[in-house]
């Protein structure tokens, strides 16, 4: 700073300096920033440089690689060049070979030409040879002649030779024989030596064998003892076996015997078949005419197993049955075998231990039976139809009869009542005007109309019992008979009767109906014995074959057994009304009631000696509606 300067200038200079200082500070700050920037840039550059170094290294590596690759390429080029050269060489060689071939071809062509020439030469030479051959044939003939001469000479020489040879041979033979004899002697000596050696060995062998024999003999003695023991055992066993055999024989005979029986049974029952199978389902026996009917022969079966006889399906069916039998079951099956309907019974045959050893199959032809059964069933159906028809008809007839009997009871009685009533009026109101005879006639009219009324009443009673059902209860027969006798005695007050009612069995039945029976029978007894001086009546009962039998016996007029069949008929009488009154319905009613109870009525009689009427009633039989139908 300049000290001479004015203060204003100084101030200005200061201000300038200040300003410059501020600028410098600013600049320094900027520089600092710029430095920092540079440092950052330097760092960046250093980084970049480092990266470049790495990139360089990379490049160098790549260059090296490229150089290597170039070297390899050069080597490859060299190789290629070498190969090219080789190919060029080969091509050159091929050219040479081609030239050679061309040359050879030319040579061959030349040679062919030469051959043609040679051929021509040969043809010429052949011709020459033929000429020569002809000359040779001539020469040969000359030679043959010369040869024949030589042969003759040779034969002579041969004969001479042979003589010499024979002599030589004899000498040689002799020498050979001597040689052989010598050899023989040497051989025999050798043999003797060998034999001596062998004998020595044989001796040793014998000594060894003797020792062995001694040992063997001892063993044999032991073996013999053993055999002896075994033989005894065998004998024992043989005895046992013979016993067993006898038993088997007996058992076999038994089996054969039973087989014979089965066979006899089967062959004697027409339409049947018996077979026996063992536990392997093998047919042991097959017999009976059914076999033929079914189209089999027994040879198919006998000794064969069921499995081999039947088709697999049939065998499986049969197997079920056989198994059941061998389980001890007895059963029966029904089959349709073609036209034959059969019943087959399967029976297990067991031994003493209850083990099934055989299966017996019995087949019986029931075709006819079945046919008959069907016919019966058909007939039954027909019959049932008929029964229904008949029942309907009978029911219709019954209804008709009912309305008929209803009409009878009403319409027949009405006119009778009028006849009786008006006659009675005549008798009552005109008594004075009528004489004795007229009054008699009127009383006859009255009696007859009454009797006809009684007839109608009895007839209706008879038909009513037929229709009536019975109501069963316990009936004390003794009490019932006693009361009936007491009632009836009043109706016959003028006769001296001795009536003996014994103990009577009680029975089950319809009380009212049984009372009617007793009334009818006892009143008959009273009536028909009424003319006897000592009239005796006995009433009793006894048991016979599930029935109680009741009887009413009298010593009255009796009846002739000749007319017995008329006794129980409706309106049938064995006596005239003059002798004994009655309508002829009483016994018919008795028979109807007893039959309804399932019992029977019968009688014994002798003229002038009396009669006995019996009726039986079942003891414990409950009375069913069927008893009704018997009427």
């Amino acid at each position, binding site marked *: 700073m300049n000290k001479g300067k004015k203060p204003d200038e100084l101030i200005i200079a200061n201000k300038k300096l200040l300003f410059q200082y501020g600028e410098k500070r600013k600049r320094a700050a900027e520089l600092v920033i710029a430095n920092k920037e540079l440092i950052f840039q330097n760092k960046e550059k250093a980084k970049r440089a480092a990266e470049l170094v790495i990139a360089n290294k990379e490049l160098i590596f790549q260059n090296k690689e490229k150089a290597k690759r170039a070297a390899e390429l050069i080597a490859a080029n060299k190789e290629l060049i070498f190969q090219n050269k080789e190919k060029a060489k080969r091509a050159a060689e091929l050219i040479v070979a081609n030239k050679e071939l061309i040359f050879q071809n030319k040579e061959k062509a030349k040679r062919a030409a030469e051959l043609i020439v040679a051929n021509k030469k040969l043809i010429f030479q052949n011709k020459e040879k033929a000429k020569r051959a002809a000359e040779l044939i001539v020469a040969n003939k000359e030679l043959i002649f010369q040869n024949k001469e030589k042969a003759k000479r040779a034969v002579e020489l041969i004969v001479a030779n042979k003589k010499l040879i024979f002599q030589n041979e004899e000498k040689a033979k002799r020498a050979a024989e001597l040689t052989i004899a010598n050899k023989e002697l040497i051989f025999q000596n050798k043999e003797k030596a060998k034999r001596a050696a062998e004998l020595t060995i044989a001796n040793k062998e014998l000594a060894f064998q003797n020792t062995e024999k001694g040992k063997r003999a001892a063993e044999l003695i032991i073996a013999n003892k053993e055999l002896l023991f075994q033989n005894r055992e065998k004998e024992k066993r043989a005895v046992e076996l013979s016993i067993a055999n006898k038993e088997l024989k007996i058992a076999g005979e038994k089996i054969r015997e039973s087989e014979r029986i089965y066979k006899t049974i089967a062959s004697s029952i027409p339409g049947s078949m018996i077979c026996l199978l063992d536990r392997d389902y093998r047919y042991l026996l097959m017999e009976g005419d059914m076999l033929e009917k079914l189209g089999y022969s027994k040879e198919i079966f006998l000794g064969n197993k069921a499995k081999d006889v039947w088709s697999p399906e049939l065998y499986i069916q049969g197997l079920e049955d056989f198994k059941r039998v061998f389980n001890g079951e007895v059963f029966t099956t029904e089959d349709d075998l073609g036209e034959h309907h059969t019943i087959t019974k399967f029976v297990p045959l067991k031994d003493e231990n209850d083990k099934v050893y055989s299966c017996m199959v019995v087949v019986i032809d029931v075709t006819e039976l079945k046919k008959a059964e069907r016919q019966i069933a058909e007939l039954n159906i027909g019959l049932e139809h008929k029964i229904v028809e008949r029942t309907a008809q009978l029911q219709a007839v019954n209804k008709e009869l009912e309305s008929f009997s*209803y009409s009878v*009871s*009403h*319409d027949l*009685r*009405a*006119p*009778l*009542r*009028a006849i*009786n*009533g*008006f*006659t*009675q*009026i005549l008798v009552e109101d005109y008594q004075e005007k009528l004489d004795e005879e007229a009054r008699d006639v009127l009383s006859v009219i*009255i009696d007859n*109309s*009454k009797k*006809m*009324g*009684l007839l109608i*009443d009895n007839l*209706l009673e008879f038909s*009513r019992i037929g229709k009536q059902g019975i109501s069963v209860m316990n009936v004390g027969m003794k009490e019932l008979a006693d009361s009936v006798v007491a009632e009836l005695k009043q109706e016959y007050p003028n006769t001296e009767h001795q009536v003996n009612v014994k103990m009577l069995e009680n029975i089950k039945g319809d009380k009212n109906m049984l009372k009617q029976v007793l009334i009818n029978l006892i009143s008959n007894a009273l009536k028909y014995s009424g003319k006897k001086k000592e009239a005796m009546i006995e009433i009793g009962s006894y048991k016979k074959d599930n029935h109680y039998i009741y009887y009413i016996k009298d010593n009255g007029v009796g009846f002739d057994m000749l007319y017995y069949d008329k006794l129980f008929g409706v309106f049938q009488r064995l006596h005239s009304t003059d002798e004994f009154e009655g309508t002829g319905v009483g016994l018919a009613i008795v028979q109807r009631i007893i039959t309804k109870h399932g019992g029977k009525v019968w009688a014994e009689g002798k003229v002038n000696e009396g009669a006995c009427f019996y009726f039986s009633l079942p003891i414990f039989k409950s009375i069913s509606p069927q008893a009704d139908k018997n009427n």
Partner: protein
Amino acid sequence: METANIEILLVEDNQSDAKLTIRTLKKHHLANNLIHLSDGAQALDFIFGKGEYEGRDITNKPNVIFLDIKMPKVNGLEVLRTIKNDERTKSIPVVMMTSSKEEQDIVESQKLGANSYVVKPVGFDNFSKAVAELGYYWLVVNSNPSQYLRS
């Protein structure tokens, strides 16, 4: 038209039976006021005031009806059923008369409410006895219907 009180109504198609019955009743002085009709249809007309009896005072009821069972057209059982099913007439005593002992008739009559039943016997003496007894019983002994109803 009768005005007197009817004692007996006899319904009977058989004229002989009717005559015999009437005679018997008369003999016993029981037929003073008796009306006889010949069939069931006529009887119903009379009782209920219909047909030829149109306008009859039906409160004038008979003391007893003698009713035959077997008649043409409407039979005795049908007449009985109609009478016993009607409140106005059910108290009238009815005696059924028949020729037979046919059980079905007896059972049916009892079911329908008949008060008595008589089988007409062939013998006139028995017949007149039976009719007289019944007439006497229903007309004299048991003339009061209310008494009957209580019994």
